[in-house]
């Protein structure tokens, strides 16, 4: 069963626990600046939006890599950067149209979400269930229910 990160921005309070957990998991420090998941704060609307890699099937980053440093984790489907192989050319960072592969100055390599090998630290840290790790086929369920409710409750045109 393929699982994916499911982000429900409506439940996010902007507490940044996910960023802390991510940086701690990967660098053993609490440093949101090093996090691979970012919470964007929309002041005008009050919305907080956690944002990270969607693990594309035909991933731009993976095909852009000149040295096979980004490969598929066969257990999770995540596109994973091998720091030992990455030469730091940064081409993946401009190839990804979502901006979710980023260069890290300190290491001279790029980083991206690797789903923590199947136990994403951000989901464990999220106190409101805004970030969950669920069966890929169920991610649209809430959305479908809302649409069904909306469409199903429309007056029928005669």
């Amino acid at each position, binding site marked *: 069963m393929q699982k994916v990160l499911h982000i429900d921005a409506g439940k996010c309070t902007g507490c940044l626990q996910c960023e802390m957990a991510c940086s701690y998991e990967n660098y053993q420090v609490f440093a949101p600046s090093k996090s691979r998941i970012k919470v964007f704060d929309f002041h005008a609307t009050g919305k907080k939006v956690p944002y990270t890699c969607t693990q594309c099937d035909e991933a731009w980053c993976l095909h852009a890599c000149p040295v*096979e440093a980004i490969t598929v984790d066969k257990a999770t489907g995540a596109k994973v950067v091998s720091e030992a192989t990455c*030469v730091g050319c940064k081409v993946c960072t401009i190839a990804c149209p979502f901006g979710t592969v980023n260069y890290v100055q300190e290491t001279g390599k790029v980083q991206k979400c690797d789903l923590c090998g199947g136990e994403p630290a951000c989901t464990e840290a999220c106190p409101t269930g805004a970030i969950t790790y669920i069966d890929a086929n169920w991610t649209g369920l809430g959305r479908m229910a809302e649409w069904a409710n909306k469409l199903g409750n429309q007056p029928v045109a005669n």
Partner: protein
Amino acid sequence: MTHHVILGAGPAGVIAAETIRKHAPQDAITIVGDEPEPPYSRMAIPYLLAGNIAEAGTHLRHAPDHFERQRITVRRGRAVSIDTVEREVALEGGERLGFDRLLIATGSRPVKPPVPGIDSPGVHTCWTLDDARHIMQLATKGARVLQMGAGFIGCIIMEALATRGVKLTVVEMGDRMVPRMMGPTAGGMIKAWCESKGITVRTGARVEAIEAEAPLSARLSTGERVAADLVINATGVKPAIGFLEGSVIALGVGVLTDARMQTNVPGIYAAGDCAEAFDALTGKTVVSAIQPNAAEQARIAALNMVGQCASLRQVTQINVLDTLGMISTSFGNWQGVTGGEHVELTDETLGRHLSLQFKDDVLIGANSVGWTDQVGVLRGLVEGRVHLGPWKDELLRDPTLLSKAYLGAAQAQGQWVSAADARRR
């Protein structure tokens, strides 16, 4: 059984072969490369020169039995002509290789400027692993190196040379560094940065002659004479398609293809640096020598070669460059268009710069220096032709709000109220 022949063992050739294998498990696939090494990446050569990786680190695939397991035959050979009627490739040495589908992915070759003495010993291009070996022998600590050209490739090898401790002089014909990728502000920042790192930079200048004594002596258009132990020719590249001249395959600067990467001859495709692909956005054909585009073109070509229907959406010019630690990017039409709007934010002390070009409420191009966080959203915005709506004014006011503008406009996440929100796609 369909036999796919792929000319060229670079990223485009390899990705096409793997894509064909994924979708056509029974087809026969042959990659023909003209260098002795296993398929490798030219893009990795600077990191080899800098000593960060060994030669094996430049290989496109690391498992020694990768191609065998994929049942992809990789063989050495150089195509000299294509018989489009008999459907055969003639290889150097007289052998003929039959094909059902053919992909031309021969990449590009360095151009040799008409400078007297350019063939002297000690003058090298920086293109192949063999070139790299020569450069590593000559570019020793304290050696005087003259680099002709400060374009994209020139700038990217500069760091490797500096790491090797050479005394470097760079001569660029354009009025600034990387003139075909970066605007004047960014080009000027990169030049000042290189000079602060001890590199001698001459822009608006060219090498007029090289005298082949030891050391080499170059005469510049400025009247200067530069002594050098090694001269690197990085004055540009062009599609490696000489073997197609005189064939019926239509050529422009590169091999002309439609949006499905097919040439004017059915069953013959082209992808990567040698291809001049149809860009649906502008309606023109474009040569774009960068791996993400090569990879996408290879994938599209391969899908069509196995009988699927896929077309290239567009050919966006994208580039990223690390010049001695100063990181710059360019996306799309960074020069802007008449009647468009432009915003620029620069902090020369911190080495940071953003330049955004708009047409109506769409971002059409950008340059950045010292800006790496979520920089890919620039591609998302440009290639997605995203209507920025109110975010355009936000960006004109503060260009650093890029990521939010992307999320807000391309994914409309900042405004969704529910699944029923009309902005949701």
